């Protein structure tokens, strides 16, 4: 016999994402899902951000990687609570993985939780994890064709950080094209040109963060 079973395949993930949202709301913590390709500078941005906000904003971090705990060790050395998730091969974090580690963080004592997703410009954008805001990094060395090649992440993100901006004189990258294409995909995206190495442009990102979490 035939059964009509109309349901969203990712319903289980969306239900769990809503549950995570509820937990975050009750704890009074704002959550940012930080996404990018591998090596674009997610952990470097977090290091900069933590140094700049420490003392005024209580930050926690969830690190997502396929394997290893190098990133968590870097964050841990800055003295903020951090949990490492190893996805064991999965190309993205999902709401269930986040839910599993929430008990290991002092959520009630945090103002802001960063979730550093697995380095991947495709899949993380597909899965809600309970965040308030998605933010992404594109590093200048990745090239100006990326917004149109990987549109979903640009469409889903509230903020785009263009990192490694200090390398601009050495590259043939068309920065205006990145801006133009990102804005055509997502007219409300906020774009920040930054260098996590030199600190250039980080102040504008920090100012935006402060407004978006208050």
């Amino acid at each position: 016999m035939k059964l009509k079973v109309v349901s969203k395949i990712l319903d289980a993930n969306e239900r769990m994402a809503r549950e995570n949202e509820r937990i975050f709301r009750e704890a009074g913590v704002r959550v940012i899902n930080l996404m990018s390709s591998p090596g674009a500078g997610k952990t470097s941005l977090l290091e900069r951000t933590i140094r700049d906000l420490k003392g005024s904003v209580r930050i926690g971090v969830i690190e997502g990687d396929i394997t290893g705990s190098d990133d968590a060790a870097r964050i841990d050395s800055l003295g903020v609570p951090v949990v490492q998730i190893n996805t064991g091969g999965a190309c993205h974090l999902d709401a269930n993985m986040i839910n599993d580690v929430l008990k290991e963080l002092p959520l009630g004592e945090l103002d802001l939780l960063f979730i550093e997703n697995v380095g991947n410009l495709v899949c993380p954008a597909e899965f809600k994890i309970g965040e308030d805001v998605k933010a992404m990094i594109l590093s200048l060395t990745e090239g100006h064709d990326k917004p149109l090649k990987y549109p979903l992440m640009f469409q889903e993100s509230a903020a785009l950080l263009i990192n490694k901006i200090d390398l601009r004189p050495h590259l043939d990258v068309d920065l205006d094209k990145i801006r133009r294409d990102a804005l055509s995909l997502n007219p409300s995206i906020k774009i920040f040109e930054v260098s996590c190495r030199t600190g250039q442009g980080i102040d504008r990102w920090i100012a935006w963060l402060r407004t978006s979490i208050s």
Partner: protein
Amino acid sequence: MHEVSIAESLLDIALRECTGKGFTEIRSITVRIGKASGIMPEALLFAFDAVKLDTAAHAAVLTIEEVPVAGHCRICLADFRVEEKYVFNCPHCGSGSFTVSSGRELEMREMEVL
């Protein structure tokens, strides 16, 4: 890229439908997959064949109905449908201001059980 997770979620939904209802075998499952969902039909079929082994769906055939990308332009107010996976401009007036009404679907539709 994450077709295996999608195949596992799909199988979970299908097996849950059988539990407690006396169905012992799933013969077929039909899903609707939007062209802009990021899911490759061939990869999903391959993943489903791998995850269904040793379950009530071991002999199930997966049928994928692809849903084209469609939208509504905020400028010229046209409704449109395209064959491509992604749409960057309204195909009628070229504006970049439009809403996408379909193409991101990842839905189970029906299944045949014994």
